[in-house]
């Protein structure tokens, strides 16, 4: 730009008006979101995730519009005898009959439940269990990490020891042992049982999932607490709780968001895995349980298996890619 251009620019501005009025400060979070919007992978994967979330969220609505039912508790649902042939495989739709819009993914053998309905409700279960576990473990991990990082001496050492203890405990063994114990306490009441299963699953995921984040946050706090703005807050007499949550926590948004976005798909996968092993949910439709059922009839009926497997894969992949993009957006220094 030449001097003449600059002069012209200056003339165009109304006199007396402050030039920098339009320049508004952007918070680091806003900058990260703008970066995220420009990332194609992030946009596509978040669209996929959003679609799956909507599918899970509106599962009852979609099912009633389609006229499909996840089980036969509804009086309007087709009786197994109506839709199944003598060899327990469905009498309409795959695998032996052509595609029908009535049941796009076919029917389950033996029970005659609609596969699409089971899938939608399965997504709903998976996402809600994973979301609940993620939120809980994030809250626990962040609080414990903040306290451990900020407290010096015995408290820090105690918390670090507990973190190490939980990390060294085998997850699968713990889950296998813990779930039946929790469930057995409620086994007398069937209604309470399905609730107990959800609580048991979420707590197993949380109990073995908070340590990684707590460690991460502790490390971050250890380095942040030596920064002078924390000391400035102390000199001003800011109470410790306020320092932790008002001064330190905003600086931990990036690691928390990144860790959370990568924990969510891990929990989805873990939920499906635990349900497959039979220590997850039995009362409500879940993806892992469907996979478990479908393995037996894979030779005759591959679609029955592939539908939930592909759904879990797409969900986990989309969440993981989104998590990667979020990490890049919030912390551009680690970009490859």
């Amino acid at each position: 730009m030449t001097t003449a251009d600059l002069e012209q620019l200056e003339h165009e501005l109304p006199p007396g008006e402050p030039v920098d009025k339009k320049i508004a400060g952007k918070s680091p979070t806003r900058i990260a979101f703008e970066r995220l919007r420009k990332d194609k992978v992030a946009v596509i994967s978040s669209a996929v995730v959003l679609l799956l979330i909507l599918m899970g969220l509106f599962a009852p609505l979609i099912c009633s519009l389609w006229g499909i039912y996840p089980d036969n508790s509804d009086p309007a649902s087709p009786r197994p005898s109506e839709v199944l042939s003598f060899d327990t495989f469905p009498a309409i739709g795959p695998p032996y009959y052509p595609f029908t819009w009535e049941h796009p993914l076919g029917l389950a053998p033996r029970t005659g439940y609609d596969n699409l309905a089971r899938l939608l409700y399965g997504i709903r279960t998976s996402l809600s269990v994973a979301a609940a576990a993620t939120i809980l473990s994030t809250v626990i991990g962040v609080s414990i990490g903040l306290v451990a990082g900020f407290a010096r001496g015995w408290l820090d050492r105690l918390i670090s020891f507990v973190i190490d203890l939980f990390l060294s405990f085998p997850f699968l063994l713990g889950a296998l042992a813990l779930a039946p114990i929790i469930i057995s306490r409620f086994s007398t009441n069937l209604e309470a049982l399905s609730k107990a299963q959800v609580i048991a699953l979420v707590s197993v995921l949380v109990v073995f999932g908070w340590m990684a984040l707590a460690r991460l946050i502790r490390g971050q706090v250890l380095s942040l607490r030596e920064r002078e703005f924390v000391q400035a807050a102390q000199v001003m007499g800011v109470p410790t709780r306020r320092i932790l949550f008002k001064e330190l926590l905003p600086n931990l948004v990036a690691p928390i968001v990144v860790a959370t976005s990568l924990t969510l798909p891990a929990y989805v996968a873990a939920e499906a895995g635990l349900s497959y092993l039979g220590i997850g949910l039995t009362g409500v439709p879940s993806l892992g349980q469907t996979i478990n059922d479908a393995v037996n009839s894979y030779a005759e009926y591959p679609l029955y298996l592939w539908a939930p497997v592909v759904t879990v894969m797409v969900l986990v992949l989309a969440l993981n890619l989104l998590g990667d993009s979020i990490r890049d957006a919030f912390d551009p220094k680690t970009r490859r």
Partner: protein
Amino acid sequence: MTTQSEAVPTTVSAAPTEQPLLEVTNLRKYFPVKSSGLVRRTIAQVQAVDGVSFQVPAGTSLGLVGESGCGKSTTGRLITRLLDPTSGSMKFEGHEIGNLSPKQMLPYRKEIQMIFQDPYSSLNPRHTVGTIVGTPLRVHKVVPEKQVLNRVRELLEVVGLNPEHYNRYPSEFSGGQRQRIGIARALALQPKLLVADEPVSALDVSIQAQVVNLLTDLQKEFGVAFLFIAHDLAVVRHFCPEVAVMYLGKIVEIADRETLYNRPHHPYTQALLSAVPDVKQAAVGGRRERIRLEGDVPSPVNPPSGCRFRTRCWMAKDICAKQEPPLLQIGPKHKVACHFAGEYGAMPTSPITLNVLGVDQEGTPVAGATPSAEDLNEPGFADTWTDVETLKGNSAPMATSLPSDSRPASEVGSEDRGTRS
């Protein structure tokens, strides 16, 4: 015994009863060095600050200079109670603040604020300037919530920033502007004492002058007292009427600006000042004589016995290893901790501290001699002082055994005190 009434400056008329804003006596901070392993025993102590005494009068500045690691920043952090002192007393307006709990300390937080060295790490990058400057106002509830923003704008204007920039983030400002934000935050509570921990050393030289001038203006306007911690002697000379020099956790010399910069009596101060480039010298041409100190600063974990500077001092004698030199007042506003304190090139050949310590030339205690009862760790300046010039003459007979100096004895006195009449 002599009375040096003619040496007393006639201008001194400050009422000695006036209470200093901050009085630090014998302040110590030892950091424990822990062994590794399951049982972490304390195996050593880093003597970061070891018996420091000084006063900061209201509305003025005391400069604290010294090289890296001499404990000047630790002293600042002790006064703001970021660290807890190991021992010693700190009196703010006559109230002891050294042993207060965080809750008890809260009212004093308003009065003592701090400006930090690094403007890039002293502002929370996730908060807007309005939040940063408004935080002290909100925490201490000095103004109602609705007026916080107005007050923030006023403060930004005071430090020379555009008051409309309150909703910007620190990353949008330059280093000098950030330091101004830090100053605005420190001023928000209208403190009486500001501890400035190297406030300009992270800034560009041209910006340094702006910030120092801003601090000078603020001091004139609001009457804030400063404890100005720096390693830049020129900045301290510009800003502080009184300067203390620290070496390895101790104050070695403390004096008013003119005395310290023109007639330094401690060899370390002389060495420091000789390292400052001199523009006049460059104009005259030729090389100035510089004092080059040998070796490194000893470890504060295991400081040298006696005088801590003796390992690098070109005048060190036996007594320096045996006896720690007290911070002896040798002028109306001049204290120095050296056995051989004197102007460069005219140092006494015999220790000036013998009478005070009650020891002989070699540093061994003399039987029957009583060390001066007066507490030499008293902060501030007394009305009477030891006169070096008289001592030089008086101690000469003791020094006759030394071949270098055999000045005839004029008068042998056991007590050589200058007196302000």
